[in-house]
């Protein structure tokens, strides 16, 4: 199951199997030879720009496009009215002005009646170049009647709150999910309430309640979203180059929206410059580029700028949580209850499996052993951009981990107990796995204490506490913060998980050429995850083919089998398993062929890396390269064995995989200015088998930077008038190398028992796990001031205000 033994090296010096290998992709990226959507230029291609709403909530009284249409170089100006006039032969409404979201809500492609968030799409200009398109956008005259916006999620359900979704006949701002529910609950409500009530009555117990907000943030990939669409009127084929993390899922959505069959749609995702969930959803801009080519008969490129990306595409988080944790005074956790107000913006565009309206948030019971847990999540509409699951969050496990890890530290403060000791007292023990959590998850494997001890060892934990004590005596404030996270990734088992009715299994095809070289065709889509490297390593590990002789093809629906794409750390758990399974099919076929060639029974053969040989006679055997040629040659094959070695597979995961880790952050805080310096960050991850440790470490490095960014500076706030206060990189701050320390990484390896190579997803572990470690460290530093909690981001102003006992409300304009 494990693969800790070192793989032999190929002639090119690459491991024939698992181990460090330089990323194949980087050859082109570091030379500036990547091919992104904005690099695609088709003959006769037109450009476009979108007019966006300056208001968060306003009625559109009229739109005058005549001046824009008169500008030389403008080809067409499309408004919501134009779209209402294009009939749509599909079940999802009778025209193109509205489109379905991934959560069975509707979203305006171009606003018709009202605009519902600042930055919403109002008109679409197609022109000969992008400069003219932008000039024309400024010439469109829209007469708006401003309406009061709903910017404070906490006030969205007040009786006199303006109604945002009057288009649906709503009378309030509640959201009804596809199952007909306005709230979503998980766990045992009664048991949890009773346990908390008992603890409150018991002098030997404590109960701590804390309001914790995970504010709205944005994944901000380096490449913004865009597409080039071309409808060939002769063949009726729509080709779309697009920034998509899920080309096949997108194709099916377009098929449903446009009423076209899938085989008339080809989605190509070339190199994608970062996704982090931002490129899961289908945006109006994509749809408009398709409408643009239908209207003009020419290829149409749409590429958003940075401000458009930050203001209109999928945000993340925006969870207002109230958590209650009960424990004995000795520090044994008894129960956790949490109430969540979820701000979904103006359209419910959350991307998540249908049966999970709050994503996987209910994994919030975390890495600890206690019997009672319950959550209730209430989503509301506000006049903000739609989205909600993005930024490497593993379907809201980010919010869950942040909640429980902050609650545990609040409990430690209440008990005056070392937060490490409190965690060690409550961590799940190895013999409890597979472990069924109070909210129904089945954790596959884990040796939590071992991982935590490794992290504490690297950190030199006892020394750090001594240093802290000495510094406090001198009036210096350092803090040490822990996070122990458990994720559930690799969605997911078909019986439970689908998106828009599409089961979350992934197909794969492996073709072995006569020369023994191979092509692997994937359904998942790299946005930087190094699939071209790591998938070749999986096949190499199974078949002994040199990784440099294996071409990995992805990102083109005409060249790859169906599958749901890359997000939620699902590539390795699902498609990576498929790669192992399809390789094993090839291996078994190779055995049949080898047996025929060696004139023995297949049962008499044994496998060593890259070769079948006769038991007891190691000299007599055939390499996979020899077998590949034989399978294409004239060798007579046994009955029932077809020629060639090619195989396909579809992998339906039996369960999620549960990676976990222990992170420790050390900060220094200047109480005079509120500035926080992250001095050290220790990250010990257990993601089971590591296919390519270097790639894993790269993913962890990136995620830790994300976490430091979210903890200290990233936020999209709004003022009361509805203005987005994070609409550029001047306002939405991403961390630089100056804010990030040299990371100290460690690992433990506890393979997943149900994954073919024992691997677990790791792409989002660090983004999920790191924010609470940073926040816990800052709160630890501020403990002498009596500070227990302040919401992210912990900007200098927020830290200073927390010391004054008056932390900032981070989701609104700072006052």
């Amino acid at each position: 199951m494990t693969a800790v033994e070192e793989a032999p090296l190929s002639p090119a010096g690459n491991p024939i199997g698992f181990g460090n290998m330089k990323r194949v992709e980087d050859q082109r990226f570091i030379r500036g030879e990547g091919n992104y959507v904005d690099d695609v230029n088709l003959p006769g291609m037109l450009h476009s720009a979108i007019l966006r709403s300056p208001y968060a909530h306003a009625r559109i009284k009229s739109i005058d496009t005549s001046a824009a249409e008169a500008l030389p170089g403008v080809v067409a100006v499309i408004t919501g009215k134009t779209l209402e006039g294009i009939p749509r032969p599909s079940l999802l409404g009778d025209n193109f002005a509205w489109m379905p979201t991934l959560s069975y809500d509707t979203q305006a492609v171009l606003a018709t009646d009202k605009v519902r968030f600042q930055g919403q799409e109002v008109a679409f200009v197609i022109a000969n170049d992008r400069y003219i398109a932008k000039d024309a956008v400024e010439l469109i005259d829209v007469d708006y009647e401003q309406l009061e916006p709903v910017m404070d999620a906490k006030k969205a359900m007040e009786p006199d709150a303006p109604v945002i979704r009057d288009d649906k006949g709503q009378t309030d701002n509640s959201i009804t999910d596809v199952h007909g529910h306005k709230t979503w609950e998980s766990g045992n409500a009664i048991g949890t309430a009773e346990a908390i009530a008992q603890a409150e009555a018991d002098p030997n117990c404590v109960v701590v309640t804390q309001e914790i907000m995970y504010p709205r943030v944005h994944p901000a990939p380096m490449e913004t979203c865009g597409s080039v669409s071309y409808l060939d009127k002769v063949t009726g084929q729509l080709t779309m180059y697009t920034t998509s993390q899920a080309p096949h899922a997108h194709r099916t959505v377009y098929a449903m929206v446009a009423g076209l069959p899938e085989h008339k749609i080809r989605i190509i995702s070339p190199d994608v410059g970062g996704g982090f969930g931002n490129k899961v959803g289908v945006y109006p801009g994509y749809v408009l580029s398709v409408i643009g080519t239908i209207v003009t008969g020419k290829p149409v490129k749409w590429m958003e700028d940075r401000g458009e990306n930050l203001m209109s595409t999928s945000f993340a988080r925006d969870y207002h949580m109230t958590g209650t944790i009960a424990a004995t005074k000795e520090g044994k956790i008894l129960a956790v209850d949490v109430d969540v107000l979820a701000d979904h913006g103006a359209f419910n565009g959350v991307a998540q499996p249908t049966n999970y309206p709050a994503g996987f948030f209910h994994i919030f019971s975390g890495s600890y052993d206690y019997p009672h847990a319950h959550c209730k999540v209430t989503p509301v509409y506000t006049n903000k951009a739609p989205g909600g699951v993005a930024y490497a969050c593993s379907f809201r496990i980010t919010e869950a981990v942040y909640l429980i890890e902050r609650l545990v530290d609040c409990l430690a403060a209440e008990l005056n107990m070392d937060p490490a000791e409190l965690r060690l007292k409550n961590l799940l023990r190895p013999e409890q796995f597979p472990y069924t959590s109070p909210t129904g998850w089945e954790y596959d494997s884990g040796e939590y204490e071992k991982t935590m001890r490794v992290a504490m060892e690297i950190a030199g934990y006892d020394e750090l506490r001594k240093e802290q004590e000495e510094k406090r005596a001198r009036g210096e404030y350092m803090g040490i913060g822990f996070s122990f996270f458990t994720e559930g990734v690799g969605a997911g088992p078909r019986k439970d998980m689908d998106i828009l009715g599409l089961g979350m299994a992934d197909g794969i095809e492996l073709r072995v050429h006569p020369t023994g070289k191979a092509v692997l065709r994937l359904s998942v889509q790299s946005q930087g995850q190094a699939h071209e490297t790591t998938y070749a390593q999986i096949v190499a590990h199974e078949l002994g083919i040199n990784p440099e002789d294996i071409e990995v093809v992805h990102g083109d629906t005409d060249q790859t089998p169906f599958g749901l794409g890359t997000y939620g750390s699902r590539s390795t758990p699902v498609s990576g398993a498929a790669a192992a399974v399809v390789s094993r099919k090839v291996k078994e076929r190779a055995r049949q062929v080898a047996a025929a060639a060696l004139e023995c029974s297949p049962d008499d053969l044994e496998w060593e890396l890259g070769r079948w040989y006769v038991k007891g006679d190691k000299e007599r055997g055939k390499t996979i390269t020899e077998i590949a040629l034989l399978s294409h040659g004239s060798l007579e094959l046994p009955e029932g064995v077809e020629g060639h070695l090619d195989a396909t597979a579809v992998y339906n995961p039996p369960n999620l995989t549960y990676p976990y880790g222990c992170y420790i952050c050390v900060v220094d805080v200047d109480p005079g200015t509120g500035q926080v310096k992250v001095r050290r960050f220790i990250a010990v991850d257990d993601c089971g088998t590591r296919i390519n440790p270097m790639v894993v470490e790269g993913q962890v490095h990136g995620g830790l930077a994300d976490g430091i960014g979210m903890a200290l500076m990233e936020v999209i706030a709004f003022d009361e008038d509805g203005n987005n206060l994070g609409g550029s990189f001047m306002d939405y701050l991403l961390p630089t190398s100056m804010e990030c320390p040299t990371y100290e990484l460690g690992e433990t390896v506890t393979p997943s028992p149900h994954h073919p190579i024992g691997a677990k997803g790791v792409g989002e572990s660090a983004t999920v796990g790191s924010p609470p470690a940073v926040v816990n460290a800052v709160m630890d530093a501020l403990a002498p001031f009596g500070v227990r909690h302040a919401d992210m981001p912990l900007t200098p102003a927020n830290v200073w205000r927390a010391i004054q006992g008056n932390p900032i409300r981070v989701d609104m304009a700072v006052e």
Partner: protein
Amino acid sequence: MQTPAPLADYVRATSVADAIAQLEKYGEDARLVAGGHSLIPMMRLRLARPEALIDINDLDELKSIKVEGNEIVVGAMVRHREVLDSPLLFEHYPIFRECEKVIADPVVRNRGSVGGSYCQADPSEDLSALGSALRGSVVIQNSTGTRTVPMREFHFGPYMTQVGDGEILTEVRFPIRPGAGSAYEKVERRVGDWAVASVGTFVVVKNGVVEDCGIGLAAVGAEHFCVPAAEEFLIGKAPTEENLEQAAAMAAEGCNPSSDQRGPADYKKHLAKELTLRALRRSVQSSQGA
């Protein structure tokens, strides 16, 4: 990609006189471009829409740092990077290096110019705080001649200066003060962000008393980036912790910051005091007469 509005003309000036002639030709819709690290982003966001750009990157006459009499003269086209690296400036005022170190990032410092920074007149411009602290002056030239304007009279308000149509800022002058100690303090949310608040100071200590001092503050709503009352209080007094604290409190008192996403007004006011105190302390320590 952000796309700027149409630009009618672009010319490269060959001399200061030529630049002025071009400015007069194109009128109020012309803009000089030096490093372009404020103007070009503003054009891309369509916040600035000049009709013509007059490029002054070839004007070598504006690129030197030198001593003239008892003043240091910094040409308008001197890059931030050159200020950061200048031994001459550092020798007289360490504040130059401290201040430049926290201005934007290396990419911006390599291109951004001193003259451009002053003319942009951003209320959080670090060089404005520095210039006001040192009581420098700027030289403005037009077709009829030059005039020298004290830094503390240079700004009319945020983004507004004494440089009018058909005029160019050619150099910035700083008086040399033997024995002066100086320091710069800045709080930013992240490297490269604008200041939440920043303070630059110089102090000359002689015979145990403050003979001269200057306090410049950016991003905190100090008129002309200074609070003279705080300086006047300190001059002639012993640089005791108590007096420095009092001066810092007076400096903060003279500020009128507004709340924004960088921080609430009460915090910025606190920073004005805290950073003034820290900068004064270090200035006093490094004053050669101390």
